[in-house]
């Protein structure tokens, strides 16, 4: 299992477009991928759940990955947060 924290740098927080791309990305992996904000954990495969967390700019979230391809998944997610959220 891999857990990693990210700070959302985009001032507008996690909007529908990047969230949609994140959900699409996670579909490429068989591992169970969860997103945790505060004490709420949701599956990253659900756009409704991600948006419902109301993630704002400056907040910290954790990504928890568990499964066979977790190492390649975390690399892809790392790259996503590096790039995608910078260019909203």
């Amino acid at each position, binding site marked *: 299992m891999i857990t990693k924290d990210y700070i959302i740098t*985009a001032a507008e927080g996690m909007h529908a477009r990047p969230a949609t791309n994140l959900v699409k990305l996670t579909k490429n992996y068989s591992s169970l991928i969860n997103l945790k904000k505060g004490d709420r954990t949701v599956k990253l*495969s659900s756009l*409704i759940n991600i948006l419902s967390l109301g993630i704002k700019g400056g907040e910290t979230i954790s990504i928890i990955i568990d499964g066979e391809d977790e190492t390649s998944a975390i690399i892809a997610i790392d790259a996503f947060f590096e790039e995608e959220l910078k260019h909203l």
Partner: protein
Amino acid sequence: MMINGIGVSPGIAIGKAHLLKKQEAALSGVVLLNNADVVAETAKFNNAVALSVQEVEAMISNYDQSQGKEGLEILETHIELLSDPQISEDVTGKISKEKKNANDALIEVIADAVQLFKNMDDEYLSARAADVQDIGDRLLRNLNASTPTSFASYEADTIIIAEDLTPSDTISMDTTLVVGFSTQVGGRTSHAAIIARSRGIPAIVGCGATLMDIKDEDLLILDGQSGDIIINPDRETVEQYRIKQENWLKQSNLLRSLKDTPATTTDGLNVKLLANIGDANDMEQAIGFGAEGSGLLRTELLFMGRDTLPGEDEQFEFYKAVALKAKGKPVIVRTLDIGGDKQLPYFNFPAEQNPFLGYRAIRICLDRPDIFIVQLKAILRASTFGQLKIMFPMISNIQEVRAAKVILQQAKDELTKAGISYDKNIPVGIMIEIPSAAITADLLAKGVDFFSIGTNDLCQYTLAVDRMNEQIKDLYDPYNPGVLRLIAYVIEQGHKNNIEVGMCGELASDPKATLLLLGMGLTEFSMSATAIPEIKNIIINSSSTTAKQVHKRVMEMDSSASITAYLQEVTT
């Protein structure tokens, strides 16, 4: 019969009504009796998801890229929402555990999700409730269907009538068949209004509940200018409007054909029509409308929607891109105009009682030369790629101009020392938007190369009217004789001192004001690019002598009501 709403996209549409009714989401109260029912209802739901995804995928593959990528992004989000495992889990859970049928389970789950979004304190996210409702409606419609509904199955000359248009309604609207639309709710900035204007079809919004008196197949006339909808008109009226429609089409074609015609009055006075822009893309589009450059490049875009200040190199690339797109035409770069209602998340603004009278624009820049000089250096570096001019906003006295120029000189010195080239004679001007600046135009003209009159703020400050305040919005009036006198004085003083005077506020794009402003001696108008052809058409059909007479007459009038009535009369 006639209904009146807000005309948000001009033009005349004549066609048959097509009502987009929202499916009434009614709970059936059915209780499933056995496991076979549960299996059947679950299958029904899964089938609805599959059909709905197919529908939206078809919309994506038929999507016309020229309509902008926003629509595509919305559709992709809808695919994810339709196949959202949480929705699926909740619906199938209600079916299997609470023994509800697919219809009821879906209605409840969507209602909860919509409420969840509506309750969010983030304006953007709460607006996503419309997307959730949209996909919920689609799923519900497909519960009892066997094939996906083909989108945009309209006949030719259809006029859409709806309570409101969902995002997917507006995106999928085939504007070769749909000639206009009207909604019960909405205003000028609603999603539907924006789409209508960008596609050039007439639209009327905010018609209220009476709009639903219209029935399918009713013959309708939509006047997107006046906001009138005529229901089942007699033949005479239809004929009248056909003529009106033809004239309008002729007019708009004429305006488009004016693109390359110079804006010269009948007696040979050359006028410069420029565009207000936000980035390099705008510049390119503006040239397509016949703009001879930009009278206002707003640089705020570069500073907003990010978490740190843009550095010198990044800013340089931005200004350089605009300069290149302008292809040698002049571009007036307005230095940072933040504060007031424009906040930056990474910059600490003090809480203020009157932000519009507060810490903003040049006041911030003079207080924070460390930020200001970065922007000035970036503009200077970009000045070798085109014809850039620098403009300071919110100037209220000559001391501010001098202080800003000291920092500009410092920026130049630093570049010289580093051996970087720039336009050494880059013109420096100011916005005239504060009454004290307008009244001391004689003094300010001696310290700058040009003026640009910002009528929006000038009007707001002169009349002491907050233009965002709905209650007093009627007092916000650029035709107030006081405001007009200030404008005339600024133009007069600019010319007396041999400096250029332009205008970049909304008045510059108001056809009613064109003759008057010409008469005052204004020869540089900067406006949103789409307004250029209409203003040009007025200019090439007017003489500067008539314009001067109009100016003289207006100055004799004591109320904006008589002034606007008179200007309306001489313009048409």
